[in-house]
């Protein structure tokens, strides 16, 4: 098992360099001169331009710039934004907020999604199952930003149950509604996944055996059916950590949250290369680690995978 984790970690190294290089390449081929943008109408003396170019390594070949940059990231030095603020400050400010938002969303989609999917799968073909299927199809086909507008309109503006926008500190209780919006699509996928695999497993031989040897239905469902049905759901949840971080771009925009999504989006629009690359690099790392965690959990949930290694 340890050997397996180690091998997977090694595989992540080229992926990390490849993904960050790709982003770096895209961002720094941005048209326009960021230094000129700093000074407005009156151009600064050449010596100042030269000094700034050296400080940001803009005068060196592209590959050298990239390795300067990645070396910095790996030693915890994320560099400065073009306005002189350390990028790490922005990271420290934005990531906890998005982390809280994503965790709430993950909690919501996992608990509610598995519960609804389990009940639908156990009562396949009944009214509850049919309505769960219809609702999940609707949630998938209505874009997140529309769901966001509607929930914000109904619950915040009409009913006044939540704040319309989240205050700058983004405390947990204000993030409930945004988290539900963020989780809505994934919730629908989890309902469908759980339902399908519960319905599959109900007909499996090991479930028939468990019932035949006289186990109470409650135990058959929780221990035998549910545990085996969770394998695809756990895979989905792991991959979803990444999409939640990104889905936050839209949700954070709607509820005016100063998280990762909002910061990246603003940085892209004003051409703040260093900020964009740093944020995306951190997101890629989180995404890769989440995928690794899934594979490890996978092995823990399903002994067949563990034994095959």
């Amino acid at each position, binding site marked *: 098992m340890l050997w397996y984790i180690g091998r997977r970690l090694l595989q992540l190294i080229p992926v990390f360099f490849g993904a960050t290089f*790709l*982003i770096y390449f*895209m961002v720094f081929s941005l048209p326009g001169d960021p230094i000129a943008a700093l000074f407005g109408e009156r151009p600064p003396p050449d010596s100042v331009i030269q000094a700034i170019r050296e400080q940001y390594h803009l005068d060196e070949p592209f590959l050298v710039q990239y390795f300067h940059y990645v070396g910095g990231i790996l030693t915890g030095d994320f560099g400065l934004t073009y306005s002189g603020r350390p990028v790490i400050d922005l990271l420290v400010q934005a990531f906890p907020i998005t982390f809280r938002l994503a965790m709430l969303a993950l909690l919501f989609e996992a608990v509610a999604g598995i519960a609804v999917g389990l009940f639908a799968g156990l009562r396949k073909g009944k009214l509850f199952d049919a309505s769960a299927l219809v609702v999940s199809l609707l949630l998938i086909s*209505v*874009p997140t*930003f529309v769901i966001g507008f509607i929930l914000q*309109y109904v619950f915040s503006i009409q009913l006044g149950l939540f704040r319309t926008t989240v205050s700058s500190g983004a405390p947990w209780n204000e993030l409930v509604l945004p988290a539900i919006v963020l989780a809505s699509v994934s919730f629908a996928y989890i309902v469908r996944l759980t339902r399908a695999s519960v319905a599959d497993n109900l007909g499996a031989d090991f479930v028939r055996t468990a019932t035949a040897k006289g186990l109470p239905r409650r135990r058959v469902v929780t221990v035998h059916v549910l545990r085996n049905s969770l394998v695809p759901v756990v895979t989905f949840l792991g991959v979803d950590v*990444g999409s939640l971080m990104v889905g936050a771009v839209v949700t954070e925009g709607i509820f005016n949250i100063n998280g990762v999504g909002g910061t990246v989006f603003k940085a*892209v629009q004003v051409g703040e290369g260093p900020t*964009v690359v740093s944020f995306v690099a951190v997101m890629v790392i989180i995404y890769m680690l989440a995928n690794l965690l899934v594979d490890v959990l996978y092995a823990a949930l399903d002994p067949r995978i563990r034994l095959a290694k």
Partner: protein
Amino acid sequence: MADVSETPVAAIDNIDETEKPRSSFSDAWDAMRSRPMFWVSTVLILVILVVALFPSWFTSVAPNRGCDLPDSNGGPEAGHIFGFTRQGCDIYARIIFGTQASVTVGLLATLIVTIFGSIVGAVAGFYGGLVDGVLSRLGDIFFAIPTILGAIVLISVLPDRTPIVISLVIALFAWPQIARIMRGAVLSAKSADYVMASTALGVSRFRILIRHIIPNSLAPVIVVATTSLGTFIVAEATLSFLGIGLSGNSVMSWGADIAQARSSIQTAPMVLFYPAAALSVTVLSFLMLGDVVRDALDPQARARR
């Protein structure tokens, strides 16, 4: 001893050899044909395609014309069944003209992703070794960058945001999914008996890949591609919503219309509702078709129903 005509052997004699051999795709077609959901989604998709191809058949308003500021957020009236947007444009006409952008991006992105992803996946799975290692790591790199995030960064660099460019950008970050599925299917098809039989008959490796392995690995790719079409339409709408979708004043997009309608959600919620409904129905049609196709192509799922 029983007469031969009464034993199971008789069944073999009764096989009609002139009958066309049944492929798994013709079985799938029979399974799909019997489901109402298949016909509902197919009819919806056909209507959507016709609207996308010939928008002027459905509205007499010329594109980007007929906007009158005094009509701002006005309700429905004769000739304008959905009412007016904030700029006083006819909502119905904008939805009709917006169909083209969404459908074009969805179809193009799916086409690019499916062709490119299948080729990469098939080559990686079939040739294995170093080729597989390099292609799979390359896929991992693009897979590690979430589609919308990569699209936001890349699009900000591009001067022109035509439907083709937007489709290429979405496809660039979405192809590894298809490649992985194709690779897995090819890996399992590679060890099948019919491949060994072809090898024994002296068929070349490349021909085995083209004639036997790829056709037998297509089913899961088709399923994912159909469902992806819906997701790509949502992706285009999301980019438009963020203000980095299709560029140019003449382009009408549901996503952009939804984003604009947001400012007047309290006074005129229907302005937001109509383009959102058009978008959702389109995505829903492709999702339903994807569901039916999946059930039909998966013999296990077919038996369960």
